[in-house]
């Protein structure tokens, strides 16, 4: 197993500190809000106080007349709709005609300073007619008086409906020895990254526009700016400084980014828009509030015969990634088990609330919770150990799911074995005293989306450029977006590994659309797999050029040479060789600086039915987590004491980063499980601050034992798969199932707050069910 065997690589497989670490620990790393341009104006946004309203007129004359105000914009100026998915462009930079949630942008101001900008906002007169609020997605399933969007399905607020059926689910249920059902109810949660949303834009007299933004996907921002502002992409330059966390919340092109650029165009001056924390909460794009009904049929031994799933998804005001979300809430239930019959109905409904979107382990988190809790329930009803039940159902390597996902590598069985052994499961499960428990939860997630959004599959999803000049330093350009996960470090390490140089020879350049080749950025856990393969290919190409030059100097064939640190030498006679720099300088004769390009393109996988591409990936990660918990019967408080996290990310290339992703994922998963909630009264958020929206404190963080058991993936770079999102999903059901072992209560509603714990215990006792003698 990869975890015990020494790495065959010089750097990869070790613990590689982040290359930008020294800049971050000294405060020298530059984030967007640190950028100050000469003559820069302050941009401010007027946001709707109405959840749903027709904007009859907006009078900006007084605001515009205020000294120090340089521009006031309303929606009509740039009305072209945009959105992250080309098929659902339903957003505008500033509301046109209607406001659709409290927080929707209805006007924007650029002024000399903050105070003037605020004063200008206060002088904007909006004549609005309130429209019906639609806060509950169930209401929007039928025809409504005032659909939130004209594009809703047949006069309803349904944004997307997915109906899929593979095999014969009814027949499977008819012959099943056992069936179970659960209804999961999930509150919305949000990313709560520490760096607020922020953009700086500057239009210059050469007809160009430069935009610096805290974004996970500079390329989508680039496209959206071009579409909405009506400027060709080549006249727009998008720069991504350091980004202070994203988790999906900076993956959509966001309206404030486009507004900031629009204000820069209008005023001819640089403009900064820093979105304050309250408005970051209102901008949301977090995990969807969801209700899912899951039915599972098995044979007498607990082998899964069928899943029947129905999901109702609260989308908020816009589509965002919602079409993908709607598919994912079904199809991401397809692993890590073999499911021979599958039926899914998913509906995502617009509501007059802040938009939901993609958040870490997008689309997979809620459905995996319900499925894993249902399987635990099944195991109990059948009298089968939860590990045995999972083992019986494990999806084999090199197989195809009923909905035609191509599964290549899976070390899921190894995950189960490792978690079971390390946690001492056999000696502990069901044997702890009342109030203490252990539970198992399993995970499965895409390692990148197989289909690029926006362009054909013939275009590479990732491209890496290298440049090396006489000094031997290697500059690396790529539009992959490091948002803290360590992708710059991995990019540098892969190049250094292939070229057998020290890490400090390799300089990863800041993302800049003028010079970085297109890559789809940081989301869907795609970067390690796709950028990693592109980086390897680029470095191999450069190595080939250097090897030819070295061979020329030594008067041998390139195939006779091997590259060791700083030296090409003859395999047959290691005493004969030339240095890296000698080879480089020979290669540069008559051509100058060397360049190389590598790219990664997904191969066609999956079926050909409608929606077949959703959830297809070049590889998948797998997980088996065991959680140990203690419940305080008096207060209802849950203490998660330890998590054994067995994870298959293929070969871990940077153990420090993989561990960091797993620990951070567990923290985020526990937040959703234990208390995080986007709480609303009407369309108004009750907790739009980091004080009231509580992410777990260090005191709540359990001990985490990480077990990396993945074997090499056949197509991943050096055998690697994703580790950024998959590590989150198993966290929630592991704890949920441990709570059942502790107090005999199944929790289907998240978050599991102390009052729900107490109510659960109370209800169990009222039903006369005794658990572990209590």
């Amino acid at each position, binding site marked *: 197993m990869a975890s015990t065997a020494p790495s065959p690589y010089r750097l990869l497989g070790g*613990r590689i*500190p*982040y290359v*930008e*670490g*020294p*800049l*971050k*620990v*000294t*405060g*020298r*790393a*530059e*984030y967007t*809000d*640190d950028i*100050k341009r000469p003559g820069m104006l302050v941009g401010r946004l007027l946001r709707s106080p109405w959840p749903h309203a027709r904007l009859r007129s907006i009078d900006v004359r007084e605001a515009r007349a205020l000294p120090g105000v340089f521009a006031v914009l309303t929606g009509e100026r740039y009305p072209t709709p945009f959105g992250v998915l080309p098929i659902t462009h339903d957003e505008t930079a500033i509301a046109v005609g209607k406001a659709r949630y409290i927080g929707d942008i209805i006007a924007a101001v650029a002024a000399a300073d903050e105070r003037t900008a605020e004063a200008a906002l206060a002088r904007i007169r909006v004549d609005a007619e309130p429209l019906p609020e639609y806060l509950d997605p169930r209401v929007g399933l039928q025809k409504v008086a005032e659909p939130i969007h004209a594009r809703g399905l047949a006069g309803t607020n349904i944004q997307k409906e997915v109906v899929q059926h593979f095999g014969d689910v009814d027949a499977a249920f008819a012959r099943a020895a056992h069936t179970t059902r659960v209804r999961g109810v999930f509150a919305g949660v949000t*990313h*709560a*990254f*520490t*760096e*607020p949303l922020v953009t700086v834009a500057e239009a210059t007299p050469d007809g160009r526009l430069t935009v610096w933004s805290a974004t996970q996907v500079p390329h989508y921002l680039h496209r959206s700016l071009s579409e909405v502002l009506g400027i060709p992409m080549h006249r727009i330059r998008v720069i991504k400084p*350091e*980004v*202070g*966390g*994203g*988790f999906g919340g900076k993956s959509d092109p966001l309206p404030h980014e486009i507004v900031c650029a629009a204000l820069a165009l209008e005023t001819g001056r640089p403009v900064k828009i*820093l979105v*304050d*924390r309250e408005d970051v909460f209102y901008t949301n794009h977090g995990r969807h509030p969801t209700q899912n009904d899951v039915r599972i049929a098995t044979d007498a031994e607990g082998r899964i015969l069928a899943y029947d799933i129905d999901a109702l998804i609260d989308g908020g005001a816009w589509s965002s990634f919602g079409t993908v979300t709607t598919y994912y809430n079904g199809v991401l239930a397809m692993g890590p088990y073999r499911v021979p019959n599958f039926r899914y109905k998913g509906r995502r409904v617009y509501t007059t609330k802040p938009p939901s979107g993609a958040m870490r382990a997008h689309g997979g988190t809620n459905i995996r919770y319900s499925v894993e809790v249902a399987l635990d329930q099944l195991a109990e009803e059948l009298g089968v150990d939860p590990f045995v039940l999972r083992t019986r159902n494990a999806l084999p390597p090199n197989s195809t799911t009923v909905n035609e996902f191509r599964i290549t590598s899976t070390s899921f069985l190894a995950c189960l074995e490792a978690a079971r052994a390390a946690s001492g499961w056999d000696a502990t499960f069901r044997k702890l005293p009342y109030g203490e428990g252990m539970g198992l939860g399993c995970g499965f997630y895409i390692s990148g989306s197989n289909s690029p959004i926006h362009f054909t599959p013939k275009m590479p999803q990732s491209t890496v450029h290298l440049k090396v000049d006489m000094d031997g330093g290697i500059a690396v350009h790529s539009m992959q977006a490091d*948002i*803290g*996960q*360590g992708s710059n470090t991995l990019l540098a390490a892969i190049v250094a590994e292939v070229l057998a140089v020290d890490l400090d020879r390799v300089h990863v350049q800041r993302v800049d659309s003028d010079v970085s080749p297109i890559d789809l950025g940081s989301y869907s856990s795609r970067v390690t797999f796709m950028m990693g393969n592109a980086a390897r290919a680029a470095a191999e190409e450069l190595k080939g050029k250097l090897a030819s030059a070295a061979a020329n100097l030594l008067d041998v064939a390139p195939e006779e040479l091997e590259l060791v640190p700083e030296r090409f030498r003859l395999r047959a006679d290691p005493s004969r060789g030339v240095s890296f720099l000698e080879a480089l300088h020979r290669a540069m004769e008559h051509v100058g600086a060397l360049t190389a390009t590598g790219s990664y393109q997904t191969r066609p996988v999956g079926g050909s039915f409608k929606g077949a591409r959703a959830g297809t990936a070049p590889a998948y990660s797998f997980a088996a987590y065991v959680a140990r918990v203690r419940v305080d019967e008096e207060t209802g408080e849950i203490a998660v004491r330890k998590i054994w996290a067995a994870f298959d990310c293929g070969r871990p290339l940077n153990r*420090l*980063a993989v*561990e*960091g992703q797993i*620990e*951070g*994922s*567990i*923290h*985020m998963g526990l937040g959703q499980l234990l208390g995080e909630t986007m709480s609303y009264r009407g369309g108004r958020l009750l907790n739009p*601050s*980091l*004080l009231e929206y509580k*992410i777990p*404190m*260090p*005191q709540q*963080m359990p001990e*985490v034992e990480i077990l990396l058991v993945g074997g090499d993936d056949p197509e991943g770079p050096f055998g690697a798969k994703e580790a950024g999102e998959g590590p989150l999903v198993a966290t929630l059901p592991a704890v949920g199932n441990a709570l059942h072992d502790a107090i005999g209560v199944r929790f289907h509603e998240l978050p599991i707050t102390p009052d729900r714990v107490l109510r659960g215990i109370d209800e169990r006792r009222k039903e006369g069910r005794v658990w572990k003698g209590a």
Partner: protein
Amino acid sequence: MSSPDRLRFRLNGQPVAVPCEGARILLDLLREDLSLTGTKRGCDLGTCGCCTVLVDGRPTLSCLTLAALMEGRSVDTIEGISPPQGLSPVQRAFVEHGATQCGFCTPGFVVTATALLRDHPHPSREEIVRAISGNLCRCTGYTKIIEAIESAARETV
């Protein structure tokens, strides 16, 4: 204040006299007026700890602090805590242990940890957790931050 519009205090060891309105917030003074952008603005409400600086050696939320109150006092920011070359032991430990991910909370943590280890060179794990509980991190789950501070403490034996 000695002069109605000049604020005099020690900033990162050097005496300074800067124009300052009465309602100016320390974070704004540092970031906007003095271009000390290592101190981060995460919430403006004293909830995230990204803006932590030392005032007379004590970790202080600069977003909740009136700049005028710094008259005659001593303020140290992440820039002042960082040695002119290389890294401090706390900073080195943060790098080696992967305690930064996105890094936006990092200056605040480094400032807090530096003060902790100055006053308590050998803190227990519980003391570390208590000391950092005013600083939010959404990336790391705190695990590697705590490991880094423990490691820096061992180094200062």
